[in-house]
C-alpha cells in the first residue's frame, strides 16, 4: 500500500485537499467484514461513481463516509478533516440521499423542507423552493401523493439545500422506472454542473453512470478493485482480440479478463500509459474499452479470485493494486 499512499500525497499536492479520502477503512458486522482495507480518494469537484454488485459493501462505505456508521478500523477524511460518526461537524459536511430516498410520507413537501431548515443550520430555503418549483412539484402536496421520481427529487433537493460540500447518493435511481431514472440523472447532472459540489454516487447498474461520472471506484466483496479518474482508467485498458492459441505471457500488460471462443480470444488487458503496438502481430486487434466492459471485467475477476482463494484480492500484490495506484 506504500504506492497508494505515495500517489495520494501527489494527488493531494496537485489538486489541493481531496473532497474525500478513506484510509484503510473497514467495518465488521459480528465476525464478518462488510468492508475492509478500503483506501480511496475523490478530488474536490469530481462526480465519482461507486460501482459494485449488491452486497459489495457500498452502503456500508457510504454510511461511514456520512457519519451514520462508525468504522471498525481506518479513517474517513472529508476535505481534510477526520470524520467521527454521529457528530455535528461530520454530519454538516456531507449531504446524503439514502437508498429508496426515505421521506416522512404524511408530511407535505413544505413540511419536509421545514424539517430540513430546523435540523440544518446552513439550510438554503430559497434553493429548495426554487428547485421543486422548477420541477413542478407542489409544495403543499403530501409526500405520499408524489411519484417515485418526485420523491427522489425532493430527497435530492433536501441534500442540496443542506449546503454540504460533499453529496453522497446511495443507489439514487434503483427504485425508479426507466423514464424517471433518466430524468433524475439528467437533473442530478445539471445540479452537479451548476455547483462546485463533489458527488459520490453508488450504483449496481454501470450504464446509468457512464455518461456522468469522471471518477470511478469499483467495489466487490468488501474490497476496492479499481479506483481512479475514469478517463485514465479507460485509457489504460485495451480490449484485445487475439488468436486463441496466444498465451497470456505473450500479451502486453496484465490480463484482467480473458474470454475464449472457438478461434479467437477476447482479452481485457491493463497496459498502463505505454503505447500499445499490435501491428506486428498478425490477427491481433486492439480496441478501447467501454466503462461497462471495464467494470464487468474487474467484478468478474474479483469473483473468480474470491472463489479460488478466500484471501482478499486487494490485499495481494498484482494487477489490482497496480490499477488502483497507477
Amino acid at each position, binding site marked *: 500500500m506504500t504506492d497508494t499512499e505515495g500517489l495520494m500525497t501527489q494527488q493531494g499536492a496537485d489538486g489541493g485537499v481531496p473532497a474525500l479520502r478513506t484510509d484503510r477503512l473497514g467495518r465488521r458486522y459480528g465476525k464478518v467484514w462488510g468492508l475492509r482495507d478500503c483506501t480511496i480518494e475523490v478530488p474536490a469537484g469530481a462526480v465519482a461513481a461507486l460501482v459494485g454488485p449488491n452486497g459489495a459493501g457500498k452502503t456500508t462505505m457510504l454510511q461511514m463516509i456520512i457519519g451514520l456508521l462508525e468504522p471498525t478500523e481506518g479513517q474517513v477524511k472529508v476535505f481534510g478533516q477526520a470524520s467521527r460518526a454521529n457528530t455535528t461537524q461530520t*454530519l454538516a459536511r456531507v449531504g446524503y440521499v439514502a437508498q429508496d430516498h426515505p*421521506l*416522512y410520507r*404524511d408530511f407535505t413537501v413544505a413540511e419536509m423542507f421545514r424539517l430540513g431548515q430546523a435540523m440544518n443550520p446552513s439550510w438554503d430555503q430559497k434553493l429548495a423552493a426554487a428547485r421543486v418549483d422548477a420541477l413542478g412539484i407542489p409544495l403543499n402536496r403530501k409526500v405520499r401523493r408524489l411519484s417515485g421520481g418526485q420523491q427522489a427529487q425532493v430527497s435530492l433537493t433536501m441534500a442540496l439545500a443542506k449546503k454540504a460540500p460533499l453529496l453522497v447518493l446511495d443507489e439514487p435511481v434503483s427504485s425508479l422506472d426507466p423514464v424517471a431514472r433518466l430524468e433524475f440523472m439528467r437533473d442530478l447532472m445539471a445540479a452537479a454542473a451548476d455547483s462546485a459540489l463533489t458527488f459520490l454516487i453508488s450504483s449496481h447498474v454501470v450504464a446509468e453512470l457512464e455518461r456522468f461520472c469522471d471518477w470511478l471506484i469499483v467495489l466487490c466483496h468488501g474490497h476496492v478493485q479499481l479506483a481512479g479518474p475514469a478517463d485514465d482508467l479507460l485509457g489504460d485498458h485495451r480490449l484485445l482480440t487475439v488468436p486463441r492459441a496466444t498465451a497470456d505471457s505473450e500479451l502486453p500488460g496484465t490480463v484482467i479478463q480473458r474470454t475464449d471462443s472457438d478461434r479467437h480470444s477476447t482479452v481485457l488487458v491493463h497496459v498502463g500509459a505505454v503505447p500499445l503496438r499490435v501491428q506486428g502481430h498478425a490477427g491481433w486487434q486492439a480496441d478501447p474499452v467501454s466503462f461497462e466492459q471495464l467494470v464487468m471485467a474487474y467484478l468478474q475477476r474479483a469473483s473468480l479470485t474470491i472463489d479460488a482463494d478466500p484471501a482478499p484480492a486487494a490485499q495481494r500484490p498484482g494487477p489490482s493494486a497496480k490499477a488502483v495506484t497507477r
Partner: protein
Amino acid sequence: MIWVSWRQHRSQAIAGLSLLAALAVFAILVSTSMRTAFSHDDLAACLARSEGTRCPAAITAFMNSFGSVVNISFWGVLLVVPGLIGVIVGAPLLGRELELGTWRLAWSQTVPRTQWLAAQLALVTGALVLLGAAITAVITWYREPMDRLTGHFINRAYDFEGLVLTAYILCAFGFAVLAGLLLRRTVAAMVAAFGPWLVIRLVVEFMLRPRFQVPLTLRQSCPQGCNATMGLDTVPPQTGHIGDWVLSVSISAGKQVATTYQPGSRFWHFQFIEAGIFVALTAAALGATIWLLHRRAAWTA
C-alpha cells in the same frame, strides 16, 4: 427540533386530547348525578357525624347506584389504558423510523442522533406527564363523592389518583421506545412492551404494594358475636376509619376480630414508592435506549 417532534407526534397529540375530552364528558355526566345523589341523601352530614355508621341504608343505596359503574367497570378499562397510551406513543418513536428507513433521513441531518433522541424524549415525556396529570385530575374530581365513602387507598381508587397513573404511562412508554429500537417494528414493539408492563403493573399492585410498609393489625373483641366484613361496600371499613386500606379480616374463636390494614395516612408515602418504582423502570429503559443508540451506530437498510 421542537417543531419536528411536534409535527411527527401531532396526530398522537390530537388523539390524546380527544381521549381526555371523552373521559371528561363521561366524568361530568356520571359525577354530576353521583354528586346530586350524594347531597340528596345528606351523606356528607352523616359522614361528618359518625364516619357513616349511623346511615347504612343511605350508603347502601348510594353504593347500589354508583358502586358498580365507578369502582368496577371503570377499573377494567383504566387498568389497560395507561399502558396502551404509553406503547402507542412509544413504539413508533424509534420503531417506525427503523421500520420505514426514515432514520437514514432523520439522523443524516446536522443533528447527531443522540441529540435527536434526547429532544424527542424530552418533548414526548413532558407531554405524557401533562396528559397523565390531566387524566388523574379528571378522575380524582370524578370520584370525589365516592372517595368520601371509600377513601382513595383502595386499589381501584389508588391506581388513578396521585402520582401512579402518570408513572404507569411513562413506564409503558419507556418499554415501548426500547422495544422499538430492538425490534425495529412498531406493532411488534407495542406488543412486546405491553406484556411485561401489564405483568409488572399487576405484580406491583397485588404482591408488592400491600408490603411497601409493614401493615398494622387491629384486634377487636366482640363479646356479642363477631360480624366482620370487608370490601368496597363496607363503610366505614372494619377499622372504623374511612380511608384505611383493609388487607384482611379474620375472626378467631368467635370472640376476636383481627384486621390487618394500611392506615390512610400512608397514602402519599405509598404513592411515592410506587411511582418511584415505575419512574425508575422508565429511566432504565430510556437510558438503555440512549446508550444503545449512541453505541450501536450500525443499521443496514
